[in-house]
């Protein structure tokens, strides 16, 4: 067996990034851990409370509801954006003038900042001046996202789909473009159906980009803050108060730093666990379906 040569000196190249991450992420995370076991009344004076904040949080109905709303939101947008993104990518042209046109159109929503997207949809959905809200009202549909929780949810979900499906489309399109023509020629010779081509050629070849798309969309949707905050402010009532909105209310609105720190850590651990499960499952699915020892 030939031992693989590994040049460990390359790790020094990572050192600047490591220092930046330490400064921007590790030190703040340590501070959050410190806050989570203490209470403060301001003036940088802290009192040790042990794991009381965690105990309160885990038994808090408010946290449970925000967590369930967050899971439901992420589940719904993944269930819509991933199949929709694949479907749109499959219909996009592979050559000709349509390629740049489609790519630019797809990339446009991704270029708009989160708060601007929120503002666009906040005005778009208003019954008095918004095109969507006014049209729906004219059609006799009772739509008011400031009063009706279902309308608020629909607005936030459609907004997210409008903003982020393009990302899934572009990633899937990149995966589809990397499939050599020989695969399609072989499928044609075998008389494979459109579904068989999708199931046995396109989907396996897209699985790595799909992994990235699902991971990115899950993590982004699980920590979504700006867009729903601008559109609904977490309401009506608490119906669109997701974890991040609840966290900000707790930390900045109520200035409960210890409680908010404990919530941040549990939130962080949940995202870490879900991302790790997604990554492990999807990378292993790929390894089992691809031949061993290949290039």
């Amino acid at each position, binding site marked *: 067996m030939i031992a693989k040569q590994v040049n460990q000196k390359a790790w020094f190249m990572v050192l600047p990034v490591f220092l930046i991450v330490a400064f921007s992420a590790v*030190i703040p995370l*340590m*501070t959050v*851990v*410190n*806050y989570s*076991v*203490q209470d*403060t009344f301001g003036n*940088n004076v*802290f009192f*040790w409370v042990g*794991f009381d904040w*965690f*105990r309160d949080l*885990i*038994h808090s109905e408010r946290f449970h509801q925000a967590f369930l709303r967050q899971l439901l939101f992420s589940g719904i947008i993944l269930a819509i954006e991933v199949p929709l993104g694949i479907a749109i990518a499959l219909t996009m042209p592979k050559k000709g003038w349509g390629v740049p046109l489609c790519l630019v159109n797809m990339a446009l929503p991704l270029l708009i900042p989160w708060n601007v997207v929120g503002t666009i949809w906040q005005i778009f959905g208003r019954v008095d001046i918004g095109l969507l809200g006014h049209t729906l009202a004219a059609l006799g549909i009772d739509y008011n996202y400031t009063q009706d929780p279902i309308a608020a949810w629909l607005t936030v979900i459609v907004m997210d789909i409008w903003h982020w499906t393009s990302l899934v489309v572009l990633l899937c399109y990149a995966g589809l473009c990397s499939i050599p023509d020989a695969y399609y020629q072989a499928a044609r010779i075998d008389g494979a159906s459109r579904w068989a081509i999708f199931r046995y050629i396109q989907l396996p070849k897209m699985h790595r980009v799909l992994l990235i798309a699902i991971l990115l969309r899950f993590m982004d949707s699980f920590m979504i803050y700006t867009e729903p905050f601008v559109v609904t402010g977490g309401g009506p009532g608490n119906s669109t108060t997701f974890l991040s909105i609840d966290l900000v209310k707790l930390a900045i609105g109520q200035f409960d730093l210890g409680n908010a720190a404990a919530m941040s850590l*549990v939130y962080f*651990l949940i995202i*870490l*666990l879900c991302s*790790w499960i997604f990554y*492990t499952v999807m*990378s*292993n699915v790929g*390894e089992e379906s691809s031949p061993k020892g290949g290039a």
Partner: protein
Amino acid sequence: MNFNWMAWTGPTAAFFLIILGMLITMTVWEIRVPGGAPRRGILGFETTRGDRLFVSLLGSAFIHIFWLAFFSLNLWWAFALACVYAVCVFIWV
């Protein structure tokens, strides 16, 4: 430098020092006895030594959270359970 703003306490400092100690131990272990190449354990996926440390730490965090949620016994029991879990992960996963 003044680190008062970070609100350090003895137990949290010890916690981070233990994590740092684990990372240093893993590095020394790999240099002394190389063998961190991926292997397939009982969960059916490949893990390196680093992956197993990550799984141990993440699992331990959730053991402590579930202990707080469902048991009123002292948290040191959860710590003991997490240690046993970590040893099992390093042996079998």
